[in-house]
């Protein structure tokens, strides 16, 4: 599969799905290889959400288990990871992203890095919660 930065003319309608737990794990592996400190998932998710929104004018919640990105957003993600997390992850992203077609056709193929392969045995991002307790909004009287 060619990713958007590998082709001359950007196709506009591709949608990619990426496991955020696998993405964060790969990000920290990349950082550790450079002797940089690892970053906990909640902080990565919040920081990436902010940076992504400011760069693309669209919000993606990286605290969910999967994030769906189009071509331009995938390029933005690659740039943000390099600029703000010192992680050049072109190769990792190639293995992590799945097109909708791939997901539909091969739902049983595991990711290269699955949550269960993480060292702490944790990793499902739907378990991640932030530090701030958010109460549901009360409906107006």
């Amino acid at each position, binding site marked *: 599969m060619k990713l958007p930065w590998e082709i001359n003319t950007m196709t506009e309608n591709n949608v990619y799905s990426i496991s955020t737990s696998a993405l964060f794990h790969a990000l920290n592996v990349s950082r550790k290889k450079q002797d940089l400190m690892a970053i*906990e998932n909640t902080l990565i998710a*919040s920081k990436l959400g*902010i940076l992504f*929104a400011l760069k693309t004018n669209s919000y993606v919640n990286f605290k969910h288990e999967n994030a769906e990105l189009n071509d331009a957003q995938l390029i933005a993600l690659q740039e943000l990871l390099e600029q703000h*997390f010192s992680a050049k992850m072109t190769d990792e992203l190639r293995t992590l992203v799945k097109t909708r077609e791939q997901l539909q056709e091969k739902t049983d193929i595991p990711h290269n890095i699955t949550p269960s392969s993480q060292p702490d045995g944790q990793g499902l991002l739907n378990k991640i919660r932030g530090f701030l307790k958010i109460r549901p909004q009360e409906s107006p009287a």
Partner: protein
Amino acid sequence: MNHSEDTYKHPQVIATGGHNVIGGLSRVYHCSYYNAYLQMAVLLTQGMGTHQPERLLTDSVTALVQLLKQRGYTKLDLLHEFSYSGFGFLQQLDENTWETPHSHYGENLCTHGKPQKTCYFTSGYLQGLLGKRVEETECKLLGAPTDQFAVFDDAPNVENFLTRQFELQTTIPERFAFEGCQGFNTRVDEEKIIANFKAIPLYGKHAQGETGLIKAFGTILTNHFIGYYNRISYETYFALHNAGIPEEDSKEMFIQAGHICAFNTFGRIMSSPEWYSLVVPMCESKDDWLHGMIAAINILGWGVYRIEKIVPEKELIMRVYNSYEGVGFRRIYPPTDDKNMSFLAMGATLGLVHLLWKVDIRDKPALTEDFYVEQFNNPENSYTVEQTHAIAAGDEYDRFIVSN
């Protein structure tokens, strides 16, 4: 410029209502972890239209130094206070060049992104001191032997932002002596802890051969301006809010800064020889450790912390009178409807709970970066925090509930 430290008097510190006031401006102790993470959070908005976080980080302190000069500070006073406060050692090289051989901001890297010049604070301090625009030209974080600063002829265009009157509360209830407070039974002697910790020399020295840094408890501290923290935090938060960033994400960044501060600095204090010789003999339970650490927090200038309720391993309720964020907010902005506005206190209170109820600092774990990540990538036994009362929103005190 070559006065020795011992011939120069330290600035007068007025301790009142949980604040430490120097030159009419409230100061708070904070660690390099907090300063690095807070600056990183502010710089997330780089390239965001007209917001200009670099100017915010620089000019916010310029305005405060201008206030000190209006109150009679001389250039020499400001140079000494730069070091006294732990910001480093400032010296002039020639008419248009200054340097800091050692500086708090130049030596404490926040390693998430690519290294960049980081001494915005020092540039802004020099701008106030000299009345001229200053830019950093060399930074130790980029491999230079010293941080260097170029002075330009034009004056900085900076306005005072402390434009609102808001007085400190003077009737603060004694520990455990307020309505709604749980009846606590502890041998922890807060007055004794405060007296002993206040005797620790938490200041830097302005003299040749000195660094002008405050090294204590295995970390590096500053005695910083509350106006600076509040200005850079809230202006950034409002900018993120106006850009449509969800509240949860933007607040999380600032709460994280407080949490990292608490986890590392409180954790190191609670592992220190001073703690073990003074506080631990008073402690029989984790509750006592909480009471002990609250006593230590009450010397930092963060306001007056009062524990309202402890349900072991389940819930902690904390009040903060004269919280520096609440007071600081009201000195810059009109009251808000949002109660969750004291980001540092939220993160700090949560961090303290995590140190005792998630990690158990009594086991003396090594507080490494890997340990931190390992703990907080594991959702088990994690807590969340909410603020129910806020001075920023017109309440008498800030109040926080940490629960699981």
